[in-house]
């Protein structure tokens, strides 16, 4: 009787342990699905694009023939756009973070700003495009220019920078701020000369991550009118422009197969720049994470 019971328990135990093992393998396989598609994507882009990638490709303007077309206008346009985005989003974003962390009193308005930033992060990027179209393109009359695109993108990435800067400011130990106050420094002197310098690595990392999101964005720039056929580089912030993702989108949409290789080559350039930006961000984080 006792032996039978023991056997039953053992059997039941075995099946439970077995199920655990089977499910563990299943969970692992599910995890690899994402990784496999990531690998497939990189493999596909590399094999499709590498043949068209050359120095000539990088230095050429868009052209009606696949073997003459290049990414130069998009590359320079993207870099110039990022410069505008960086200037506006960093000044406004870091100031917002300082206000929220150091000056804001705990009231309804502060809560409102916080919740508002959280909600802005969830607004689809294309809606920011519509905002830019109404305000920057038509109301401020920038037209379809770098300035309109840059300001639209700056608003789009603002929440990312604010959140990153808030975290960076919060991670500065209050002891060094107290020491600064103790030496007779005022509030702003302490923030400008003690807190901000200590928070710069975190802010920089957040900024690079925000910019790497902006450099890959396509939809809002289509709405605020980044052109596809640009044969001169923009010479001012009020010039027409194009960016890499728009070029890639345009080439992907063409029916002839050669254009897909041209698009593939563009994607390689775009991903290489993204990789570079993210490596810099990781480097900064690792270099400064030991201190403080």
């Amino acid at each position, binding site marked *: 009787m006792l032996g039978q019971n023991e056997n039953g328990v053992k059997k039941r135990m075995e099946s*439970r*342990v077995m*199920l*655990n093992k089977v*499910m*563990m393998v299943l*969970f*692992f396989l599910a*995890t690899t699905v*994402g990784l496999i598609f*990531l690998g*497939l994507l990189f493999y*596909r*882009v590399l094999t*499709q694009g590498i043949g068209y990638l050359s120095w000539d490709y990088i230095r050429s303007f868009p052209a009606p023939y696949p073997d003459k077309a290049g990414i130069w206008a998009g590359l320079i346009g993207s870099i110039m756009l990022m410069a505008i985005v960086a200037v506006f989003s960093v000044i*406004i974003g870091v*100031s*917002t973070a*300082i*206000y929220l962390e150091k*000056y*804001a009193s705990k009231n309804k308005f502060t809560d*409102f700003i916080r*919740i*508002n930033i959280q*909600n*802005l992060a*969830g*607004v*689809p*990027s*294309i*809606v*920011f*495009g*519509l*905002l830019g179209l*109404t305000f920057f393109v*038509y109301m401020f009359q920038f037209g379809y220019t770098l300035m309109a695109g840059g300001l639209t993108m700056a*608003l789009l990435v*603002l929440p990312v920078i*604010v959140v990153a800067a808030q975290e960076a400011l919060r991670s500065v130990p209050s002891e060094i701020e107290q020491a600064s106050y103790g030496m007779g420094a*005022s509030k*702003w002197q302490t923030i400008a000369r003690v807190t901000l310098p200590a928070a710069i690595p975190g802010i920089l990392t957040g900024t690079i991550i925000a910019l790497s*999101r902006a*450099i*890959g*964005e*396509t*939809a809002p720039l289509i*709405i605020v009118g980044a052109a596809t056929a640009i044969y001169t580089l923009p010479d001012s912030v009020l010039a027409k422009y194009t960016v890499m*993702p728009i070029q*890639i*989108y345009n080439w*992907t949409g063409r029916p002839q197969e050669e254009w*897909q290789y041209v*698009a593939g080559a563009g994607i390689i350039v775009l*991903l290489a720049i*993204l990789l570079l930006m*993210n490596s810099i961000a990781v480097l900064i984080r690792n270099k400064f994470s030991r201190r403080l």
Partner: protein
Amino acid sequence: MDNSLRSEGNQLNVQQMIEERKQKKSIGERIEKIVPWFLLLCASVSVLTTVGILFTLLRESIGFFSNVSIFEFYTGTSWSPWSGHYGVAPLIGGTLLITVIATIVAVPLGLMSAIFLSEYASDKVRRTIKPVLEVLAGIPTVVYGYFALTFITPMFQAIIPDLGIFNALSAGFVVGIMIIPMVASLSEDAMNSVPNALREGALGLGATKLEVVFKVVLPAAFSGIVASVVLAISRAIGETMIVTIAAGATPNLTMDATQSVQTMTAFIVQAATGDTTFGSTIYYSLYAVGMTLFVFTLVMNLIAQYISRKFKEDY
């Protein structure tokens, strides 16, 4: 004489110094007063952005609804703005079809990844796999669109021969792949915050790891998991480039995933790239569709925030 002159000189110096110091202090004080106002001004930019979004969407939508009745817009089932049919249902249908496919792909895969990473993987494995998985979230959507059109669609065509070049299936599938890291990462965070004591209690009573997952960890992390899923769905609704490139531009009220559909976002891109004149009804329709899209994602985001606030478990 000599002495008094020197003292006078000294006095002068001290007075000057005091005066200079006073002036400096007043500049410093002024900065001290101005800075908070400047910072507040910057902080209000984010509020102004929200106000601006609401303002443009509402104002231009009202312009649209003075030409097309709001009733026709929300109940009509035919969307062909170039011939004057403004029933938004096909665009909403297209958006929902893509979102449903993406959810079917992303939620099981994302949750299973989260369970593996949080409960089964060693620390070292988790620290390697999680960042790699998050790379998926950082890839530009135009690249996903390219991937869907030139790789996933031909792959599916090998299985379903009469699948068109543009179809909801590939687009939805790739949107799903894109939001996997969102589900996985946020759910994993939620599972990680379940205290180990609960797990150990269950393990001590003889539960297997799987039983701990389903009877302890998942219920305890439920609110975080649901919030992550809702946020991912909201992201799928607003996704633009993948569906524009891979799903085509046929407003089509269908639940057949092999068909080409047009989403709300894809219409906005199509109308913005075409020669839409400023002030025309089509121009205004951009905003009416944009507002509908905005309301969809806003509701999802508010639900996610409500869930994570209301059902937050504090340990």
